[in-house]
């Protein structure tokens, strides 16, 4: 059904579905930190937004860039930023980790907000979206909503496969150990700081994919994309869906974005209603929407 969506759906809904797909990538990358490693970050949007900025700053004024070159460049730049941020914030633990991720994210926000080269509070427009030309007989045009939707769908699948792969790897084993009991993991001989840093960089580079897509979709980047609102929004989706599972971010993101969309149509007090829904889910399904599925299964047995 997801594959055929662009065939029968209106333009607006294809765009909305693409937005959800982009958020799924972003929320999944945050889940890698929050759910799998036990690192609650409130500054993850720094990597989402800065990826868009890299694209905007790299894009030439009159021609469009090769999609893959642009995407790789964004991911690499954001990976470097992730390594720098991670090296600092991972020296702290618990509440101090949350605070330092928040602080670095906000520093980046004001840096982009108050400097001329980044376009200040208006941000930067991307006039020519990157594209891809397959030996001259097929052109991927990202201003075409269907083309963009398919690209996002493919990338979501690749990202989910990648995260699954990571969690089933020897590295993923250590990451789980750090989440459950970091002290013991150290005592077993693992240099846990290194593992957390590698995980932080991977998560930032996956977030870069989503930020890149978001910038391409609307052709504009602005400081709001790196602000703590965006980070908190994603964290809410992680918790709503259920942290530490592959499907959690998919469920959480889709549900929250649909709920917001419906309430927005219905009333101007939509944020109040959304908040109530989130609180109710948190109260009754402490393991998130994924837990709902499992608790049903268990009661059947």
């Amino acid at each position, binding site marked *: 059904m997801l594959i055929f969506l662009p065939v029968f759906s209106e333009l607006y809904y294809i765009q909305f579905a693409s937005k959800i797909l982009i958020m799924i990538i972003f929320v999944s990358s945050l889940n890698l930190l929050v759910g799998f490693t036990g690192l609650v970050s409130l500054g993850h949007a720094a990597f989402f937004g800065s990826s868009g900025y890299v694209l905007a700053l790299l894009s030439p004024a009159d021609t469009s860039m090769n999609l893959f070159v642009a995407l790789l460049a964004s991911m690499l730049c954001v990976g470097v930023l992730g390594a720098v941020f991670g090296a600092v914030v991972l020296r702290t633990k618990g509440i101090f980790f949350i605070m330092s991720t928040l602080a670095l994210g906000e520093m980046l926000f004001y840096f982009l907000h108050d400097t001329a080269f980044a376009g200040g509070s208006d941000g930067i427009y991307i006039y020519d979206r990157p594209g891809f030309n397959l030996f001259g007989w097929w052109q991927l045009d990202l201003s075409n909503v269907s083309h963009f939707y398919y690209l996002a769908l493919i990338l979501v699948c690749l990202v989910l496969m990648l995260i699954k792969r990571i969690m089933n790897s020897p590295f993923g*084993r250590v990451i789980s150990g750090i989440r459950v009991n970091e002290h013991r993991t150290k005592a077993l001989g693992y240099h846990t700081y290194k593992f957390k840093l590698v995980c932080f960089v*991977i998560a930032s580079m996956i977030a870069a994919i989503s930020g890149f897509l978001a910038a391409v979709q609307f052709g504009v980047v602005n400081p709001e994309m790196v602000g703590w609102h965006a980070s908190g929004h994603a964290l809410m989706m992680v918790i709503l869906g259920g942290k530490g599972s592959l499907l959690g971010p998919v469920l959480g993101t889709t549900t929250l974005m649909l709920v917001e969309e419906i309430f927005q149509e219905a009333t101007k007090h939509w944020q109040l209603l959304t908040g109530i829904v989130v609180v109710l889910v948190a109260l009754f399904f402490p393991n998130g929407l994924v837990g709902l599925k499992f608790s049903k299964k268990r009661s059947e047995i």
Partner: protein
Amino acid sequence: MRSVIEARGLTKRFSGLTAVSDVSLSCEHGVIHAVIGPNGAGKSTLMNLLSGDLKPTSGNILIDGIDVTGSGSSQMSLLGVGRSYQRTNIYPSLTVVENCNLAVQSRSKFSMRFLSDVGSHPEVEVDTKNVLERVRLESVAQKRVSELSHGEQRQVEIALALAIKPKVLLLDEPLAGMGAEESLSIVALLQSIRSEFAVILVEHDMDAVFALADTLTVMLNGGVIESGLPQDIRSSDRVQAAYLGEDFSD
């Protein structure tokens, strides 16, 4: 015989309180060196110094004659120091096998590989199976550790220490909170593996201590008051006065 692990004049001060004061001891391969003393004598702090969980204020730690003072717990582990904790310190939400796999994998070079599948490194599972057989946990291998009995959790604690294939085993009250029968089986387990390691054992169960120890060190108020063969310690007046009480003063 050369000491596998040696402490020279170890001292640890916590702002005002001297928890461990000028302690020297050593342990050779195949020897069980027991450290006893009343609560608050500094035994656990000493273990934390030896395992790198704490850094000494002064003094040195040597492994195979090489000074390794100041190494953190992960480095000490890689140098061959395996330890069990007094308060069970394992992975409650993981299964016994997963607990053990993590410990075994710490000796490998592929822990950073995030794109290879755990299935492509079956040697980890093989080692885990051997360790679980030794500590007799095969029957609960697939259970989550949080579902196990206290005694079984203590066995997992020891399994993690064994799984890293250490040269030195630091066992901090392995019998804590165990019933008589469980205690006996742990003592039997320690007897069966004693020849392979240098073991430093902190324990309150005197029957176990005298059954296992080749050498005894008695601590009181952070310092060593006596050290030697178990039978000499048994007859030492100072030790009797400080610690053993009437039970041993015939």
